[in-house]
């Protein structure tokens, strides 16, 4: 699959960027494994891949932010050492990070000159920057007020500042890490016009994104990353969104989950016009309405960052929201004192959070302690009115671990000493064993290997068959396809559409996830 479609090396020009055998590990996590890539000058090269695939890491290495463990970098055919960002800037590389590296209470101008000042005094630097800013603004239509504070301008403007920063440093190679994640469609369109303009001037651009539409629209070539490895590089003109969707989310082995048809019962969860505004004032949920019945699994598909996390967090009591949510006909509090994880649990809602390491588990707690996390007030776990019954809980834990095939089944080990899959089984054991009316599950198999995935899927189906309602959020399309009885696709804080798994395919869902409704487009 790979070989045939890799861009052929042009004899005339050396590639603007060539990476050879780049590897990088963060402690035990292998973020990049022996990655090689070649980008020709004057092209736009896309990189896609699921969360945690290692895209940002790779680009940060190119920009000198991280140091690679192994590998070589060639810029315009020259082997180049990039020990820090200064070296990258000197080599003509500019990068717009996924999380902007701006100083919030500095002005636009100050941010632009930071690190690229002329001389020890600021005044001349600022004056010079102001001049070239006006020039750049004219040239590319990148309008920002040079004297505005970063914290006072929107994210779209902040991104322009990052781009201006790179251009001010006369970058010939521009890396953009998920630039449209934070932009409105109009802003994104404008960004693409600017990118096209830059390309026309002969600049080289690397664009990281999850959105297939963008890849198709603007890139010349595209690479796909998966679990730290580069799995394919193809010419955009020779591929299709369907193929890319498959490359991005597909597995070599598609899992078949044996399950009986659902026998949906009464409505358990009813959500109406749910809205969430985050700490930065960005509206994350823009009026979500859905329902889940007993004995069915509603799968919520979508690219990360489109509001699925917030949906789960609101339902799990982790953040306030407006709108109506009722469980078994009784409405629940979405704000105030009575809206927290404890109260949700008492209403029969169990929650397997997306981030098991930072939310679902306390990594320094022993397994047995983690197995009562959130339920620690349950009378069953107390020895008397004052003390908890640790030995009893430990024994209970050992049995649960046995049942959920946690390896090793030693309840005294700390959570961090288990592998990812086993950590996930701990969380599932805890939540499913409570026999809840509604189970919220986020990314149940992220970073988990195939054997464990199968086991986890079986447990979820078993709970469904016991007549419980399940809301499943996953970025893995085949997981959604194989588990769900109904599928809702989220995009930009809204439900893009609902499908039945029997009447759709990955392509259609992939397009919905990218914000394209195939029925209307």
């Amino acid at each position, binding site marked *: 699959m790979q070989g045939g479609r890799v861009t052929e090396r042009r004899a005339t020009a050396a590639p603007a960027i060539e990476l050879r055998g780049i590897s990088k590990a963060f402690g035990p996590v292998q973020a990049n494994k022996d990655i090689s890539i070649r980008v020709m000058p004057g092209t736009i090269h896309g990189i896609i891949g699921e969360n945690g695939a290692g895209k940002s890491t790779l680009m940060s290495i190119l920009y000198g932010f991280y140091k690679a463990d192994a590998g070589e970098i060639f810029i315009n055919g020259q082997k180049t050492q990039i020990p820090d960002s200064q070296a990258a800037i000197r080599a003509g590389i500019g990068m717009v990070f996924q999380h902007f590296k701006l100083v919030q209470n500095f002005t636009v101008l100050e941010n632009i000159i930071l690190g690229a000042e002329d001389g020890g005094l600021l005044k001349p630097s600022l004056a010079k920057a102001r001049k070239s800013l006006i020039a750049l603004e004219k040239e590319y239509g990148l309008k920002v007020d040079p004297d505005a504070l970063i914290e006072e301008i929107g994210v779209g403007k902040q991104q322009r500042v990052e781009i201006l920063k790179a251009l001010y440093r006369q970058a010939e190679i521009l890396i953009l890490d998920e630039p449209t994640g934070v932009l409105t469609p109009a802003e994104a369109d404008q960004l693409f016009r600017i990118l096209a303009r830059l390309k026309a001037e002969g600049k080289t651009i690397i664009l990281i994104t999850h959105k297939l539409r963008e890849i198709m629209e603007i890139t010349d070539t595209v690479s796909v990353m998966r679990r730290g490895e580069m799995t394919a590089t193809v010419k955009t003109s020779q591929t299709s969104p369907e193929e890319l969707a498959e490359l991005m989310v597909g597995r070599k082995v598609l899992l078949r989950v044996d399950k009986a048809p659902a026998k949906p019962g009464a409505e358990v969860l009813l959500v109406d016009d749910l809205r969430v505004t985050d700490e930065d004032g960005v509206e994350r949920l823009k009026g979500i309405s859905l329902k889940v019945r007993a004995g069915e699994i509603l799968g919520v598909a979508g690219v990360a960052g489109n509001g699925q996390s917030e949906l789960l967090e609101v339902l799990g009591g982790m953040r306030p929201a407006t709108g109506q949510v009722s469980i078994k006909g009784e409405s629940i509090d979405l704000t105030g004192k009575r809206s927290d994880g404890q109260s949700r649990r008492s209403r029969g809602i169990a929650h397997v959070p997306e981030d098991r390491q930072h939310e679902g588990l306390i*990594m320094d707690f022993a397994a047995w302690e983690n197995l009562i996390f959130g339920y*620690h007030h349950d009378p069953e776990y107390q020895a008397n009115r004052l003390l908890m019954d640790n030995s009893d809980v430990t024994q209970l834990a050992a049995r649960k671990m046995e049942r959920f095939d946690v390896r090793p089944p030693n309840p005294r080990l700390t959570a961090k000493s288990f592998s990812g899959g086993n950590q996930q089984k701990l969380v599932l054991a805890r939540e499913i064993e409570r026999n809840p009316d509604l189970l919220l599950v986020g990314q149940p198999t992220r970073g988990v290997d195939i054997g464990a995935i199968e086991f986890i899927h079986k447990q979820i189906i078993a709970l469904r068959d016991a007549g419980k309602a399940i809301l499943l959020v996953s970025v893995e399309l085949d997981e959604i396809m194989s588990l769900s009885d109904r599928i809702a696709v989220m995009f930009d804080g809204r439900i893009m559409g609902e499908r039945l798994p029997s009447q759709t395919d990955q392509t259609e869902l992939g397009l919905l996830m990218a914000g394209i409704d195939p029925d209307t487009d």
Partner: protein
Amino acid sequence: MEKMPKWADAVLVPLLSLLMAAILSAIVIFAIGEDPVAAFKLMVDGALMRSAGWGYTLYYATNFIFTGLAVSVAFHARLFNIGGEGQAMLGGLGVALVCLYIPWPHWTLAIIGASIGGAIFGAAWAFAPAYLQAKRGSHVVITTIMFNYIAYSVLNYLLVNVLIAKGSMDPATPKFPEATHLPTFRDMFSTADTILFRGSPANVSFFLALFACVFVWLLIWRTRLGYEIRAFGHSDTAANYAGISAVRITIVTMLISGALAGLMAVNTTQGEAERLILNPTEGAGFIGIAVALMGRNHPVGVFIAALLFGFLYQGGAELALWTNIPRELIVVIQALVILFTGALDNMVRMPLERLFLAFRRKEAR
């Protein structure tokens, strides 16, 4: 997977840090022209080789147990309570008021009353910093520092203007009534023909401190509250997931911490001075930080570290008594212990981790 075994982190790291602090201390003693070995012998002789020496060592240790526990409880919720000093001062006020204004029939009742008084006043002094951290995000470190100074002024004012004994030149309260006096170790352990712990201030509140150790151990590792405190301390995002209220845990933990610091006054104010004096804490609140750091926030560790500091204090007093080494040497040692076990612990941990990783790899092969 942990980079090194738990025991290494809990025992080896503090031991090595302590060793480095000890070596540097020896160098300091040597540098001021004294003999470190002789000084150490003198300290051991004065602090551990006589029952009265033990009486002082345990007296100081009692203070440090309370303040060390206070710091550790807060640490479990990842709160850094530097306010032990002020909380203990206010605890002294609570103890004094209880002892002076309530006519106690017997010390057994008085110690209960005084403990409650000290704990409540200490907790009250911790409340404002706790509330401000929980509700307004003002850093508890800075506010507790400020509250230490405010406490000193409050105590100063009350002793000079309100509580001072009539006709006395000392800014101190009158002596507490006879019935509130606590039995000392001498009263408790001397037999008819051998007097033990003669004149030393160790008293029954040492057992109160032991009781506090057990209490903290139960609280942190056996109760739901302790479970929530630890969970919140390890991960506030996970605590949010589990529905553990950050505000509640912050305030409750600081109240417990302040109460423990306040309890120290039972030992100093009711047990030793038998009146409230101007500087009833003598820096014990700060030593609690070192004790907690060294004791790895575990009551057993705190107990051992408190004994060590008790020994240092008594030994240091002996040094000052019989040699030209000033008592401040102890402050230097204390500083080095805090520095190495608290701030420079990575200096020991990092190479140790590498060592363990390398060792394991070799083993795996």
